């Protein structure tokens, strides 16, 4: 009887990369007789929770697709094993990417997908507002002014701001943190959320609300694209996937504008394959995960799926040539910062969201909000 390796894959099995993955899996099975890989596709909404739940119930999957942000929490609860990368392997990743999976000096997952963020702008609206359609804003002030012009001069609103009670609000805000030289947790693991940079960032976030679509608190990122597609907002910040989804408008995409106290930056999010503890087939699972994510296989997968390339492989140039809109996203990789790595990710998210919403709704001053949040965050580091 073959031993089963239970692998949880988020999303559905319609992606163009799936056949590649299946091929690799059957190759692996051929090489490791006595083991059978069973891939389960779970929709995004419940995918990570499901793996966590199974693990905490003592019945973990062998390997699962997890947001890297959860790795520290899983590790702290002793639910996953480190992936023990060789120096050579580590070197294939850009440092910020490696940063998203590293906690307490160890790597806890193998990056499988990742994204950086950039600024989309509507050239027609820029033109209509009397702005140069080919000159996206480079700094926060420029961005604000452009947004204000659009709001004042056109039917549309200047900017798409997300502030709903979803993970994505924190993600949006992290972009500002990272373009303003801020951090949530520093290299020593201390909470430094209450830095002046962050106060500035949060203050600016609130300021953008005045030129954004009404009621940002009702919006997450997914709701912004329709607005952008409809020409109802002049700009919004999002990942590379919007490139193929935004239609009907004349758009461009540019690196995120810099904050007054910082420079280039972006939030860099990775999803990883994590190997769970207690499945009884940890070693095999790890070997499978490594096979799937080695540079060649990973690259092929990304090309098929249209994902952002994780490693700087020769093919990247081709991609870029084919579609120059990738540039803003690829260029941002080295400047990227990770999602804060904590032991209670939802707690972190709620805390930061609350600070953001407080400022957006005009209920608290940025300085105070940041202070309160920093205090609460102490609990999660």
């Amino acid at each position, binding site marked *: 009887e073959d031993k089963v390796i239970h692998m949880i894959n988020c999303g559905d099995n319609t992606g163009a990369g799936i056949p590649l993955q299946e091929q690799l899996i059957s190759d692996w099975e051929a090489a490791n007789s006595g083991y059978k890989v069973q891939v389960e*596709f*779970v*929709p*995004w*909404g*419940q*995918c990570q*929770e*499901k793996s966590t*739940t*199974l693990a*905490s*119930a*003592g*019945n973990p999957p062998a390997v699962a697709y997890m947001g890297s942000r959860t790795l520290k929490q899983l590790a702290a609860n002793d639910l996953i094993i480190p992936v023990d990368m060789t120096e050579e392997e580590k070197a294939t990743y850009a440092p910020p990417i490696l940063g998203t999976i590293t906690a307490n000096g160890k790597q806890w997952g193998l990056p499988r997908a990742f994204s950086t963020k950039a600024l989309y702008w509507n050239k027609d609206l820029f033109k209509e507002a009397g702005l140069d359609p080919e000159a996206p804003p480079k700094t926060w002030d420029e961005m604000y002014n452009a947004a204000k012009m659009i709001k004042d001069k056109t039917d549309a609103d200047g900017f798409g701001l997300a502030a709903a009670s979803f993970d994505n609000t924190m993600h949006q805000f992290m972009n500002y943190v990272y373009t303003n030289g801020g951090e949530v947790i520093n290299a020593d693991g201390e909470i430094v959320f209450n830095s002046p940079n962050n106060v500035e960032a949060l203050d600016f976030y609130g300021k953008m609300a005045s030129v954004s679509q009404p009621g940002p608190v009702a919006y997450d990122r*997914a709701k912004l*694209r*329709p*607005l952008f*597609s*409809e020409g*109802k907002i002049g700009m919004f910040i999002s990942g590379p*996937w919007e490139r193929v*989804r935004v*239609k*009907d408008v004349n758009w461009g995409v540019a690196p995120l504008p810099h904050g007054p106290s910082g420079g280039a930056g972006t939030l860099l999010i990775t999803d990883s394959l994590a190997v769970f503890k207690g499945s009884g087939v940890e070693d095999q699972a790890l070997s499978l995960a490594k096979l799937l994510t080695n540079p060649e296989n990973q690259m092929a997968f990304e090309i098929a799926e249209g994902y952002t390339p994780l490693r700087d492989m020769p093919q990247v140039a081709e991609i870029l040539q084919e579609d120059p809109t990738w540039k803003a996203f690829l260029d941002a990789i080295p400047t990227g910062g990770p999602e804060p790595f904590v032991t209670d990710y939802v707690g972190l998210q709620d805390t930061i969201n609350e600070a953001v919403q407080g400022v957006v709704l005009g209920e608290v001053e940025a300085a105070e909000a940041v202070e309160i949040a920093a205090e609460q965050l102490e609990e999660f580091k």
Partner: protein
Amino acid sequence: MLHKYRWYEYVLIYCGLAVFLTFVLAPFVEAFVVSLRPLSGLFSIPYRFITDDMSFEAYFSMWKNVPLLWRYMLNSFFIATVVTILGLLCIIPAAYAFARFEFPARNSLLGVFIAVNMFSGAVLIIPLFKLMQQYGLLNTYFAMIAPGTAFVIPTGIWLLRSYLVRIPKELEEAAWVDGAGKIYTLVRVIIPVALPGIVVVTITAFITAYAQQFIYALTFNSVNELNPLPVGLFQFFGRQSVVWNELMAASLVGILPVLFVYVFLQRYIVAGLTAGAVKE
């Protein structure tokens, strides 16, 4: 004569009804309208009620996006049905006991059963979760059926008991005099006679089990094939963008069969409310 209205009373009543029914039905109208629009047409500004690009496209394309829609609907029905059946198996004997027998602690026991109603749903999610986890019941139909059953029982007992109380005792006494045992009497006499009441309890239990599947399923199940309709549809929200027109189309198609059934059963529902709950 008593109910002869003046013209202005008619106007008032119909206006009131119009407002009331608009409140009740507007969301369905909205859902229908949304389901008819192409996705791009949905996000069009300004708001228009009728647009010329309306079509039933979403009703076809949704099967691709939610290939398991049938499955979700069947799951919903299946779960609600099993909950109802299990519920009835518990409710009927218990209601009979409370309606007909004197035994110590009867009233307090009934009170306890009814009080349990308060802790329905979300309150017990955590311990139940732990319990299911402990016995490896997570991600099974059972995980969704068991709590559903528990929370239809108290109301069911309450409703059926007040129905049974009004069945003349003499029916049982006659059977007893004729030598029938208690189980025989329950099965051959009481249950058939109480059938209208049981129908009402069945309907109410089914409604409850059908309408309130979200939280248990969301929490105790993550196997997509087992998901009931609401959770199945909730997955629309996990995507990069919500395909609203298909979500609405799928929602409407999903609830259509139940709505259809209830239209036919509505008189039992109203009658049942009168029968069970009003007095007391």
